[in-house]
Structure formats: structure tokens, C-alpha cells
């Protein structure tokens, strides 16, 4: 046999074999992509040297049909109806869920499953809009490295629920991105911050973005980032401060004749909010105590001078909402304010002095602002992506995150039976037994919900499914075990089994909009990201990539733990590897998949033996340390 490379899969001896892995911060107002180069995480700039991509897509119907980022932003005032900003607020949401939906400058449609946006190119789903942004960042990364992307870590607000996470993953798939992991934004920030400052102890990450608020309490020790509790509000951010400020300016400018923003035209709304944002940013500059909102409207010019203190009063209810979530997270972590070593500020909106002062006041210490709050999330995601792709040869970091919201099931009377409590470390699995309540009942409807309230109507509905074919029994005799499994991305899977008869049902909790694979394929075919790619060719490419991955993974497993195998088992695996190697050049996707699967099957006992060795070593290592 040829001499094998003697390194672990990640420790690529050859720089050309380094896998291109990036971190993507898909934000409400702007997005970034970062990567680790020469051991340092950095944000990747566009051709004009700008690292920020405004999260704005404008559909024009001319040329490529869309503008993305700064170009789209420039066209927003003139064409608000076709310029989609803050699309993150719509991800995984139906129209009625979207806060202040009538105040958006574009028209949101009440489409089933998920809201969509009415544009000159027809209705666009938030997934498609997000995919445009993600694809732009993907191309930026691929151009930077002149190589294909191996995968990306994409950040989501910690407080995103299952539907919002699924929507984000689907958008990445549309953009042709292999998602290595979804990680929570404050956790990503903690990674960047913790590694940068070599900090140890308990930290709070206060993350106020354009449209979302998160608070996470983490313990940092020896490369382990353990999230103790998380909380927040996935519909609260800097946009809300802009709106409150716009209201205030209208009131000041027009006194009691003030038009309510709802009554303004789309163009006026977009202009007014932009003017309010400029005023807010001016008020955030050091030493500035007042600034003006200046904006022409159909009803006359809106001219108002706003002081810092007037702004603080007008937005106090928003700031207080964030502090309430902070207090609850502290309680969930079982900690006092004085236990917090430091408070890390993340998100552009934490530049507002009103926010900084309120946080400093609550914790009795000045928050840490030494890392750029716009970039820190993308940088942390890049570090984790580099690690997951196996490029990191240095000290391993370990991320132990939690689910933000409790998961449960509807029981009699519209009440929620909580199965996985919030702030459980993921991955996790919990089971609960239910029974039938009628004699001879042969089916059980299950309704999966997420949230903290006791009534089903106050929680988010994630999925409904049925367990059918239960043999008729007296009421209360059947034992139906419902198992919830939450993976490392925070995504839920539910299984139900009647334990006497073995009747089973299983569901991957796709939120109600539940894109089928066919729909995804259709959208892929239509999408800009893969316009030229033929779906069939894509399948072959994907099968080859999977085959290649399987060979690499098996090879590195053999290198590390080949001694666990008998000669005969080793020979079997070698034969199957050779078969995959041979099939790789074929154009038959099904054939490549079949031999890859066969290799996976014969290596299963080997994988089990390796896992056992690892665990045994973990405990043995611990014993040595403990003595």
C-alpha cells in the first residue's frame, strides 16, 4: 500500500489542501463574511475594499434583475417598494407575526407558511432574498481564495426559534452553501472576544442588532465556551429605535397635526426612517447632545431637533425590554450581577450611549467595547468554521450551547406539556410518555410547540403530526413515548412510538412552511446563485464531493485507529475504499452514492470501536488529572 499521509484530517500538511471555511453573519441591516487566514480571523472585503454588505436586495427587472448591497441601498429611496431591507425580520414568519408590518416600505404578502414580498419580479420569499445576500458573500469568499467554498458557519440570533433557524438553513442551501453549523450570534462574539483577550470567567454578551436582541451568559475556561443561559427578543433592535425616533420627530415637527407613520407613502416612510437613523447615529457620536431629523414629506417638511435626553425618554421602553431579558437570563443561570466578570457589547446598536449607559448601570461596570461590534460575530463564526472544517491545528475550542426556548407538546385543554426546557445544553434528547383518553382510540394527534407560556395559543406552533395504527386498547392503557431530539444546530426532530405495539411515527420538524425537496430544487433552478448549473450535473458533483469526504474521513480514521481492526476487517474496508475511489470518476450519481453508502455501512462497527476508545481515553485522562 502506498505511504499514507500521517496527519489528522484537519492538519493538512499541504496548504493547498486547506479547506476554505468561512463565518457568515447574516444580519438585519448588514452582513459580513470572515475567514481565518494565517491564523488570524479577518473580514473579507468586496472589490471596493468594504467589508460590510448592506442586507438590502432591490429587484429591478433590468439586467441581472437585482441589485445587492450598497447598490440596492442607493436605490432604496427612489424605489422603496422593490427594495427589500431587514428581510431577517420575515424569516420563518407569517405576515401576522411580523411586528409593525404595515410600516415596512415594501408590501408584505400574507402567503401561507411564510410571508413573502410583492416585487416587480413577482412575490419573493424571505428565503430567496436572504439567499441573494448569502450567495453574494459566498462569491466574495470564493473570489478571495480563488477556490470553492468547503462550508460556512452561519450565525443566527440566539433567540431564533426552530422555524427561523430552518429558514436560515434553507436560504443557505438555496445559495449553494454547505452549512457546517448554525451558531448563535452572542456565542460567536464570545469566541472572538474570549480568544482575543484570553479571558476566563463568566461573561455576559449583550447583542443588540438592527432587528434582534440577544443576551447570553457564558462561562469561559480553558478553551471551553459553555453557554449558561440565553434570552432575548427576536423582534427588537436598532430599527425600533429608528421608528421611535421618527415618531418623536413627526410629533415635534407637526405638533398635534402629526401624521402617523402608517399614513405616509412607502417612499416617505423609507426617507423618514433613513433620516431618523442618521439622527440616531449623530446622537451616538461623542460629545453630541442634539441632532436634527430633516426630511421632506408629502405632507410638508419634517424638521425637528432632538436632544439625547429626549431620545433616551422616547426609547426607554425598548431599552427596558432588553434589561428585563438580561435579568431573566441571569436568573436562569443562577447568577447574580456581581458574578459577571465582564459585559461584551455586540451589534451596531450598542453604539448608542443610551444603551451603553443602561447596561453599565445595570451591571455596575463599564461594558467592554474594544472589538468592533459590527465585525465580532463574523470573526467568531470564522474561527469556529475553521475549527469545524478541521483546519485548526492548535488548541481545540469546544462550544457547549443551549436551546433558547422550551419545546413542548399540546395536551388536553390547550395546555403545553414542556418536554425540553429552555437553556438545556445541546445536543439533547428528552422523552415523555402520553396515553390515550378514549377506549379503542387508534390515532393520536401531536402538536409540537415552542415557547415559555402555558397556553398553546401563546406559543409558536412548530409542527403537527399523527401517530396512527395504535391497536385498540382501553383508555389510558396505551403508552406513547414522544421523544424530542435537538441537534447541535438547535434543530428539532420528534419521534413517537406506542411502546406496547411498536407503532412508530417520525418527523423532522420542518416548520409549517415546510419546503419540500422538490420546491427547493425548483427554487434552485430559478435562483441566481445557480442559474447556469444544471441540477443533474449538480447531483453528480455532490455525490463526488460526498465520496471524496467519505474516503478522507475513513482514511484518517484508519490512520488514527487502524490497530483496532482485524486483518480481515481491514481488508474489507480497503476493498470498499478502492471501489469508491474507482466510482468517483463515473458520471452516474446513483452509482457513486451506492458505493459510498456501502463503505459507510462496512465502517460502522469501526466507528463504534473508535468512539469507545475516545471515551475511555477521556475518562482515563480525567483520572490522571484528578489524582
Amino acid at each position, binding site marked *: 500500500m502506498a505511504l499514507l499521509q500521517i496527519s489528522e484530517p484537519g492538519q493538512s500538511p499541504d496548504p493547498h489542501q486547506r479547506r476554505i471555511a468561512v463565518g457568515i453573519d447574516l444580519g438585519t441591516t448588514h452582513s459580513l463574511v470572515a475567514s481565518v487566514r494565517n491564523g488570524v480571523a479577518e473580514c473579507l472585503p468586496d472589490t471596493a475594499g468594504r467589508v460590510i454588505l448592506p442586507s438590502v436586495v432591490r429587484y429591478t427587472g433590468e439586467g441581472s434583475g437585482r441589485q445587492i448591497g450598497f447598490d440596492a441601498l442607493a436605490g432604496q429611496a427612489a424605489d422603496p417598494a422593490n427594495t427589500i431591507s431587514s428581510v431577517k425580520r420575515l424569516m420563518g414568519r407569517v405576515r401576522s407575526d411580523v411586528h409593525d408590518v404595515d410600516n415596512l416600505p415594501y408590501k408584505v404578502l400574507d402567503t401561507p407558511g411564510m410571508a413573502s414580498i410583492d416585487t416587480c419580479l413577482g412575490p419573493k420569499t424571505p428565503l430567496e432574498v436572504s439567499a441573494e445576500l448569502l450567495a453574494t458573500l459566498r462569491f466574495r469568499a470564493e473570489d478571495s481564495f480563488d477556490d470553492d467554498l468547503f462550508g460556512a458557519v452561519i450565525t443566527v440570533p440566539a433567540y431564533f426559534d426552530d422555524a427561523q433557524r430552518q429558514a436560515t438553513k434553507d436560504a443557505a442551501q438555496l445559495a449553494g452553501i454547505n452549512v457546517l453549523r448554525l451558531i448563535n450570534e452572542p456565542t460567536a462574539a464570545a469566541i472572538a472576544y474570549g480568544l482575543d483577550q484570553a479571558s476566563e470567567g463568566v461573561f455576559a454578551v449583550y447583542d443588540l442588532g438592527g432587528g434582534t436582541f440577544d443576551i447570553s451568559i457564558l462561562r469561559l475556561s480553558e478553551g471551553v465556551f459553555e453557554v449558561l443561559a440565553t434570552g432575548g427578543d427576536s423582534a427588537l433592535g436598532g430599527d425600533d429605535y429608528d421608528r421611535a425616533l421618527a415618531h418623536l420627530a413627526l410629533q415635534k415637527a407637526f405638533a398635534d397635526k402629526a401624521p402617523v407613520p402608517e399614513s405616509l407613502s412607502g417612499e416617505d416612510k423609507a426617507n423618514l426612517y433613513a433620516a431618523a437613523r442618521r439622527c440616531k447615529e449623530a446622537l451616538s457620536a461623542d460629545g453630541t447632545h442634539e441632532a436634527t431629523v430633516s426630511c421632506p414629506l408629502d405632507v410638508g417638511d419634517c424638521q425637528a431637533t432632538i436632544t439625547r435626553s429626549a431620545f433616551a425618554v422616547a426609547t426607554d421602553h425598548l431599552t427596558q425590554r432588553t434589561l428585563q431579558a438580561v435579568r431573566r437570563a441571569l436568573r436562569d443561570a443562577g447568577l447574580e450581577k456581581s458574578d459577571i466578570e465582564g459585559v461584551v457589547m455586540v451589534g451596531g446598536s450598542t453604539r448608542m450611549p443610551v444603551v451603553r449607559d443602561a447596561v453599565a448601570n445595570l451591571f455596575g461596570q463599564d461594558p467592554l467595547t474594544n472589538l468592533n461590534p459590527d465585525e465580532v460575530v463574523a470573526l467568531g463564526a470564522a474561527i469556529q468554521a475553521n475549527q469545524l472544517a478541521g483546519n485548526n491545528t492548535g488548541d481545540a475550542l469546544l462550544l457547549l450551547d443551549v436551546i433558547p426556548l422550551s419545546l413542548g407538546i399540546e395536551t388536553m385543554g390547550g395546555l403545553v406539556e414542556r418536554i425540553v426546557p429552555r437553556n438545556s445544553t445541546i445536543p439533547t434528547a428528552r422523552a415523555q410518555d402520553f396515553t390515550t383518553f378514549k377506549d379503542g382510540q387508534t390515532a393520536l394527534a401531536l402538536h409540537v410547540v415552542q415557547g415559555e407560556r402555558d397556553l398553546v395559543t401563546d406559543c409558536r406552533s412548530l409542527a403537527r403530526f399523527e401517530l396512527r395504527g395504535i391497536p385498540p386498547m382501553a383508555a389510558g392503557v396505551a403508552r406513547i413515548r414522544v421523544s424530542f431530539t435537538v441537534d447541535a444546530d438547535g434543530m428539532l426532530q420528534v419521534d413517537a412510538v406506542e411502546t406496547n405495539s411498536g407503532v412508530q411515527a417520525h418527523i423532522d420538524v420542518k416548520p409549517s412552511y415546510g419546503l419540500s425537496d422538490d420546491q427547493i430544487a425548483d427554487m434552485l433552478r430559478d435562483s441566481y446563485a445557480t442559474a447556469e448549473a444544471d441540477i443533474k450535473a449538480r447531483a453528480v458533483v455532490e455525490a463526488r464531493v460526498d465520496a471524496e*469526504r467519505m474516503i478522507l*474521513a475513513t482514511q484518517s480514521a484508519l490512520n488514527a485507529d487502524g490497530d483496532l481492526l482485524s486483518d480481515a476487517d481491514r481488508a474489507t474496508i480497503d476493498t470498499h475504499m478502492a471501489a469508491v475511489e474507482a466510482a468517483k470518476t463515473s458520471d452516474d450519481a446513483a452509482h457513486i452514492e451506492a458505493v459510498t453508502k456501502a463503505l459507510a455501512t462496512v465502517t460502522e462497527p469501526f466507528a463504534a470501536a473508535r468512539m469507545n476508545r475516545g471515551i475511555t481515553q477521556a475518562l482515563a485522562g480525567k483520572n490522571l488529572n484528578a489524582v
Partner: protein
Amino acid sequence: MSAPQSLSLQASDFELFDLPEQFQLDATALTQRWKALQAQTHPDKYVAADAASKRLAMQWSVRVNEAYQRLRQPITRGAYLAALLGHPVNAEDNTAMPAAFLMQQMEWREALDEAQGDVNGLNQLADDTNAAKKTYLQLAELAFDTDKDISRAVGAIRALMFIERFLKDVNQQLDALTP
């Protein structure tokens, strides 16, 4: 290296963490071993691995978290230990409690009604309840570890379950009052 015997997913929580099968627990050792085990089993370590390894990692990581959660909280640890020792707590089916304990509960419930909207009163009640919790935790430890009287230990665990539920109600009211 005296390697511990090979573990299966069916090993008990105590075996998995190589901790003595008792109520009293070395919390630092528990957390250390949790992290050591997660460093081996967490799915993040298997992103580029084959499907079988990924699946195994998921199963083990879930199992390790389950055991950690259960051992970490004294009440769930006690209930688990009692079941291991052949005395399931059966909290749902068996709600009978000594009369004195029930009286105490009723007094607390009344005090909670009276303290509606009164932060100081609620805080006092929370302090009292926490003190009672501490007492019952000591009783449980004595019964489990010193006297090996498991049915008495089960009594203490069930009392702790009641107390915990009451504490939750007190804290909920306190939450509603803290702006």
C-alpha cells in the same frame, strides 16, 4: 494507564462519569468530566467525519448531556439514584405526604397569597423556602449515604419536589414585580 472498562450507552450516569453511586457529589469533578467527555463526543468534532461516526457522536453527546443534567440537580439526581437502588419515586402516582409537611405547605401557600405584590414579603418567603430546601437536602444525603435508608431518602426527595414547585411560584411572582 488503568483504562476503565469499555462503556456503553446503557451505562448508568454514575458509571459514565466515573463517580461513586451516592447522593453527595463532587460538583467540580462532574463538570470537569462533562467537558472531557463532550470534547470527545460533541458533533462539532465530527463535522468532516463519516455518517456512522456522526450518528454515534450525536448519540453519545446526547447521552452525556442527559447524565450531566440529571446528576447536576440534586432532586433529579436523588430520584435517579433511588430508582437505581430499586426505590422509584413515582412522583405522579404517589402524592401522599406526612401531615406535618402538608401543613407546612399550606402555611406557605397562605403566606404566598398574603404576600401578593409585596417584594419584601416574597423575598422573605423565598428565603424561608430555600432554608427548608437546604434542610431536606441534608436529610436526603444522610438517608442515602450514611444510613442507607432509601425509603426515607425517597421521602426527602419527594418533599424537595414539592418545595421546588413552590419556589418556582414564589420566583414567578417576584419576576412579575421586578421591572
